[in-house]
């Protein structure tokens, strides 16, 4: 059968994928003609095995060939942040950056150099910052950030409870579930692994009952949920604790499971029943906190405890909050109370959803070496005491505060210059207005970028980098799969773009670093393959892997987290000090003045709904993932922008109280800033809460109003006791546009 894709003899098909921080990794067949992508097709495997891409990579060519892509090096000519730049040569750009690195090192020492890396490009060879880390380590060191914005709360919770971050099941296992609780999880929007929504729909069609607990009636809920339980942000743990109360009072917990596999349930029980603090955590108690009716909580508890197997799918969004770690910890505890850990169709909770087959965390990469700046620091691997992690590094959600305050503010060093790549942290961490001030304060700022992002506008030197389509690399999906991908270079570099590795290599020569290995991309990829144990184990024929662009791993049965620990506990202890699931964590208890309790608890926090500040700012703000871009990546792509206007979700009750009508421009504001945005008046959000998707580009006008509607103009640059960025714990008010 002739294929239409081959109709034009001048078109060649390249098998590739993207490297976005999106959760999916989808086979793409790029149609290339004269170094231009002219069309995109998806996976051509036999159904039902196709890994289907979402709308974002359907618009891939408009992203790669966008007219606003940076095509040559530039230097700032106006005031910093004004966005006025002038074209310069690579020679001048690299010489300037190299000289600044030497100058700052000589005058202030290596700790004054901040390296900002990120998730803007997730792959092996060209991974964000790997080459720069290697270079700067050889140059004497640098200060950098710790933690990721997305999932630090879930990481802490999983390490505390299980001693492992591999807490997920492969997606097909949802078909074994009789009940699925989507607790803050919206894969229709945030993807969460290619085909996840498809598998969830199949699970539903297979007879599973689905309940969504969420402030929003999101699209996942709209498609699969039998019931929506609207809940106030930051109160998930209270409802879970009350569910535990119902289970204990009605003796519904799987006590045999708890006795055999867990430690500390009695202490949790004592807290739940109020023996510890004189306050029983009843459904009525949780209802007042969460706005979830008490009888709904009772029914939820009974249903979850008596339907086997049941999968409680907690995620990372609700944990991106003050005391957010407690949500994932408490979810995992409910999974144990119902005996669903380690069982097909069940779940372990913990929010990370990763499986230990072809996991992204195990991707090979350029060896970065050790950072001399961190050598005298504490050993942080595995520690649950977040304060140890911020002795030599800066928590990602206080990065700009650290630039402003330095050592006097308790940060590891006084920062004078920054070199940045694969991130747009001004836009994507808390408090964008503060971030803008911080970037103004630097002596020098260099950025590698594809677009003039809000952060790139503050650069002194802008270095244009190649896109994924202009590179070859080894790729893996976020949490699950399982499969490996090889993305073939589809285009020769556009304009004067260089890849990050090339830039680091050329800087090495200017910094007189002799042993920075200068292999070609081809050589590096071959080396990474040779040195990766899991790639070598699964893939014998590297050339075939490259040609096909993917290696799928056939699973005889779906991966189930902790299956061995449950089926054969004598020979397979959990990787915790007790060898069991730690509902009570002695390691957490031993942290002096620790901020997290050793058992999961609901705790009031700053800027929760009962904070006195709520009199001034009565609405809670949540900032979910966008659907039509990847965080702040792809923001400029018109095919995507037109699918969904950037709007603030507001319930008709709250809109009416403020005289706001659907579709009008409003201002969302608090003491940190003001954004201008269109109102979407909808019943799909609980009263008292507004929602703005993260990732829209920060664009302050002359009055300081962010016309771009960047959610982080309103959020806090702070982190919770276990390291969670508190981006979903913000109080705001909404008003109609000010008229002059």
């Amino acid at each position: 059968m002739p294929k239409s894709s081959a109709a034009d003899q001048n078109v060649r098909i390249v098998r590739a994928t993207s490297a976005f921080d999106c959760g999916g990794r989808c086979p793409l067949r790029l149609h290339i003609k004269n170094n231009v992508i002219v069309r995109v097709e998806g996976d051509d495997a036999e159904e039902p095995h196709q890994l289907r891409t979402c709308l974002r990579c359907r618009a891939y060519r408009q992203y790669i060939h966008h007219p606003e892509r940076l095509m040559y090096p530039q230097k700032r000519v106006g005031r910093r942040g004004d966005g006025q730049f002038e074209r310069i040569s690579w020679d001048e750009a690299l010489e300037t950056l190299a000289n600044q690195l030497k100058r700052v090192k000589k005058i202030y020492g290596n700790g004054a150099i901040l390296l900002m890396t990120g998730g803007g490009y997730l792959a092996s060879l060209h991974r964000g910052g790997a080459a720069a880390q290697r270079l700067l380590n050889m140059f004497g060191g640098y200060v950098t950030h710790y933690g990721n914005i997305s999932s630090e709360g879930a990481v802490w919770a999983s390490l505390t409870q299980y001693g492992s971050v591999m807490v997920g099941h492969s997606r097909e296992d949802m078909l074994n579930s009789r009940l699925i609780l989507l607790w803050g999880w919206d894969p229709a929007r945030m993807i969460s692994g290619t085909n996840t929504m498809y598998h969830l729909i199949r699970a539903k069609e297979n007879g599973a009952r689905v309940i969504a607990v969420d402030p929003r009636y999101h699209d996942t809920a709209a498609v699969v949920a039998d019931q929506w339980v609207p809940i106030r942000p930051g109160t998930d743990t209270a409802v879970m604790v009350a569910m535990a109360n119902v289970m204990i009072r009605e003796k519904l917990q799987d006590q045999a499971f708890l006795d055999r596999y867990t430690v500390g349930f009695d202490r949790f029980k004592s807290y739940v029943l109020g023996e510890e603090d004189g306050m029983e955590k009843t459904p009525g108690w949780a209802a007042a906190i969460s706005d979830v009716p008490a009888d709904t909580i009772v029914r939820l508890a009974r249903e979850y405890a008596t339907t086997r197997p049941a999968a409680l799918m907690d995620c990372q969004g609700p944990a991106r909050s003050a005391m957010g770690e407690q949500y994932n910890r408490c979810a995992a505890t409910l999974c144990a109370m119902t005996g669903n850990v380690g069982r097909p169709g069940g779940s372990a909770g913990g929010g990370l959803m990763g499986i230990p087959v072809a996991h992204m965390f195990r991707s090979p990469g350029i060896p970065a070496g050790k950072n001399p700046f961190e050598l005298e620091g504490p050993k942080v691997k595995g520690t649950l005491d977040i304060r140890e992690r911020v002795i030599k590094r800066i928590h990602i959600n206080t990065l700009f505060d650290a630039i402003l305050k330095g050592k006097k503010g308790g940060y590891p060093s006084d920062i004078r210059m920054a070199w940045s790549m694969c991130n747009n942290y001004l836009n994507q961490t808390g408090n964008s207005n503060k971030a803008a001030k911080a970037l103004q304060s630097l002596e020098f700022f260099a950025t590698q970028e594809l677009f003039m992002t809000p952060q790139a506008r503050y650069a002194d030197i802008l270095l244009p980098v190649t896109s994924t389509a202009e590179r070859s690399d080894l790729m893996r999906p976020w949490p699950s799969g399982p499969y490996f991908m090889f993305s073939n270079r589809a285009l020769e570099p556009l304009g004067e773009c260089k890849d990050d590795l090339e830039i680091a290599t050329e800087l090495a020569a200017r910094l007189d670093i002799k042993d920075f290995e200068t292999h070609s991309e081809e050589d590096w990829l071959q080396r990474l393959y040779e040195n990766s144990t899991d790639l070598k184990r699964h893939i014998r024929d590297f050339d075939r892997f490259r040609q096909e662009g993917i290696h799928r791993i056939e699973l005889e049965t779906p991966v189930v987290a902790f299956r061995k620990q449950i089926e054969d506990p004598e020979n397979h202890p959990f990787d915790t000090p007790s060898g069991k699931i730690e509902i009570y964590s002695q390691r957490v208890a031993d942290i002096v003045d620790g901020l997290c309790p050793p058992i999961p608890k609901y705790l009031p926090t700053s800027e929760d709904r009962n904070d006195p500040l709520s009199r001034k700012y009565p609405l809670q703000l949540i900032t979910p993932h966008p659907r039509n871009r990847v965080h702040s990546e792809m923001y400029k792509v018109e095919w995507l922008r037109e699918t969904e206007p950037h709007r603030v979700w507001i319930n008709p009750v709250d809109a009416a109280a403020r005289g706001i009508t659907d579709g009008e421009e409003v201002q969302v504001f608090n003491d940190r800033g003001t954004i201008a945005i269109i109102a979407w008046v909808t019943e799909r959000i609980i009263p008292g809460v507004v929602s703005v998707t993260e990732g829209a580009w920060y664009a302050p006008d002359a009055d300081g109003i962010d016309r771009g509607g960047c959610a982080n103009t309103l959020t806090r640059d702070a982190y919770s006791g276990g390291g969670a960025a508190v981006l979903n714990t913000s109080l705001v008010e909404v008003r109609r546009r000010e008229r002059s």
Partner: protein
Amino acid sequence: MNQFGFYFDQTRCTGCSACRVACKDWNDIPAGPENWMRINYTEKGKCPDVFVSYLAAPCWHCEDPLCAAACPFGAIHKREEDGIVFIDRDRCVGNAACEEKCRKACPYNAPQFGPEPGAKMGKCNLCLDRIQAGEKPICVEACPVRALDAGPLETLEKQYGQTRTAVGFTYARRVKPAVVFKPKPTSP
């Protein structure tokens, strides 16, 4: 005639727009008002009892296409071999000359125009190039949740039934759109 048409499973659609973007990519249509595939949105009820559904809206390649009858220049015809309603862009004189008679005649808003004055009509042609190559239209291949299918209507009816209703869709008897649905129930 072997009438081709669509199948749409409304119970699966998440409103994600992958079909719409894939359509623009395959058919090379710029961002803007010309959308051969649209997503129609329905929201009813009150929190927490809210009903939401989406409807994919391409051209349904009607058995009696009013657009073809309405075009004063004979630029739209129904193909004998597969029933695809096809626009001949060489014969279309643009919307300045005819006040978009085809769009006004169509009950489903399928004929689409770009923003430029005198824009010529464009609409879904069921990816005729792909159909002729033995492939499914790009929207069908693009759907992440497999909510779309296309092919001979008889085959679709055998596979998916003959339901011709869906939320946000009215079956117009006088044109007979070539589509079968799995509609979303409005109450549980």
